[in-house]
């Protein structure tokens, strides 16, 4: 009698042993997944890389019409002291047919200072300054053209040159990052 009872239980409803197998298996799988995470996360930016995430720039050395390229988090950042003509050209095109519409005043804190991450939004090359159809930037890799506000105007890049976070510490000093 007892034998047939356990046999029945084995075929119709889960036994204590089934429960142990499933629970142990699930617990093991979660454990293995958790153990995998350090192996994946070790590839993310480390603490020292994250710590190096701000750069200060002295603006007093940059004359009107000049640019300075500084390295911030391993990337070039363009700090451009724009001319009157460049600012006017940038503001005039605020309503032009832009791929990534943005007004010039939303891209600067002070119109004469344009701060951009110098990395083409296509595939990461460094665009060349004061070149291209709009006298802004031109990327030699795949031909993206940016205007004097760093907005994408032509070519394969999808977005405007990024504006990094920065603050004016004094009138002639900014901190990027």
């Amino acid at each position, binding site marked *: 009698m007892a034998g047939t009872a356990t046999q029945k239980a084995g075929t119709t409803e889960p036994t204590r042993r089934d429960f142990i197998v499933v629970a142990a298996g699930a617990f093991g799988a979660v454990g293995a997944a958790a153990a995998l995470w350090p192996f994946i996360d070790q590839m*993310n930016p480390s603490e020292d890389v994250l710590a190096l995430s701000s750069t200060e720039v002295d603006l007093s050395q940059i004359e009107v019409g000049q640019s300075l390229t500084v390295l911030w988090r391993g990337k070039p950042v363009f700090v451009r002291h724009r001319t009157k003509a460049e600012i006017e050209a940038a503001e005039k095109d605020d309503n032009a047919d832009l791929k990534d519409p943005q007004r010039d005043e939303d891209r600067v804190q002070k119109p004469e200072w344009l701060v951009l991450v110098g990395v083409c939004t296509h595939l990461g*090359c*460094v665009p060349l300054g004061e070149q291209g159809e709009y006298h802004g930037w031109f990327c030699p*890799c795949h031909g993206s053209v940016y205007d004097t506000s760093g907005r994408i105007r032509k070519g394969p*890049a*999808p977005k405007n040159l990024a504006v990094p976070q920065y603050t004016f510490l004094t009138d002639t000093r900014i901190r990027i990052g």
Partner: protein
Amino acid sequence: MANNTTGFYSNPIVKWIEYRLPIFSTLDHVVGSQYPAPKNLNYWWNFGSLAGLCLVIQILTGIVLVMHYTPQTSLAFDSVEHIMRDVNYGWLLRYMHSNGASMFFVAVYIHIFRGLYYGSYKAPRELLWWLGLVIFLLMMATAFMGYVLPWGQMSFWGATVITNLFSAIPVIGEPIVHWLWGGFAVDNPTLNRFFSLHYLLPFVIVGVVVLHVLALHQHGSNNPLGIDTKGPQDKIPFHPYYTIKDLFGIGLFLLFFGYWLFYNPNGLGHPDNYIPANPLVTPAHIVPEWYFLPFYAILRSVPDIWFIEAKLAGVIAMFGSILILFVLPWLDTSKVRSAKFRPIYKQLFWVFVLACIGLWYAGGQPPEGMALVIGRVCTIYYFLHFLVLLPLVGWFEKPLKLPASISEAVLKGDAAPGAAGSKA
């Protein structure tokens, strides 16, 4: 396992070892006298073993180069120059490794096109084909990461452009790129992990090659007629017939390798990679190594498609161009394997080869004017070939009459007119 294979050998030492470890009989069954192969294999069947030879050369030269190389951004470039100038035979070993990569791709590309022409991907060899594609993908990853190690301008900017491809993925693109870099730009963490993986992946390739050969032995090699072997009369032992033929091919291949190695060692490289990496200046014209040019052309040929921006569409098309090969055994609806008996497919094959050459040309030019047009036309044709032409041709093409057996075709000599391509 306990089959008595010792009786086959006369040398007492071999006998002693064989009794304990059946290594000699195993080798005999893999590449020896106990492995029967179709008797009509032509010289296009040499390139599998040539690719294997290239893998061995790359691993051997790579291991010794690591004895002198330093994977650190401020030292990597100089350590490569140290190898070139100071290390005994360093120049030779490095040129063997860099040109060896190109030779590996030459062999593998011919091997792949051989498979396409003779229908080697068709049943029952689909998994054999898949494993080959996995090897190809691993090779591309390995070659890409290896090219970054000298830390020249092309290394750095090639790495930047290719890793940026992943930023095209919506939402998770940027975190993935930062994860790949280990920072916010290609830098020392990137170099270190690429070095680690560049050392690892060749051994993974060895593992997949073992599976590739295992799958090959399940049904044996395909052959220029594309028909199944029907019995012992259709086959000859791999050793000595194909070992000696492969050896002869190796001799010719090494002459070709020797030309590049000794007379034109930088001919396949780019001079900009002798300029140390500079994250502030992008070279005017970034081009990948020659073996990646067709894929680079596809990447750059794709414009905005509906709501998908060009960058993402290009990346999808580029990866798609390889992934599509995985479904090739089912896209090709013809039951006849060899193009020799497929009059229309045979012509389409050569048009496809032309399209690949067109892509190769376009990939090396700036993406404007005529090169862009060629790139776009060839990209469209590439996908058209697999997605439209192959399924259709299988339906309406009338194949030529297949010979009854390999041995009949070979001995009569008239079933395969002129043995086209067999001695090319």
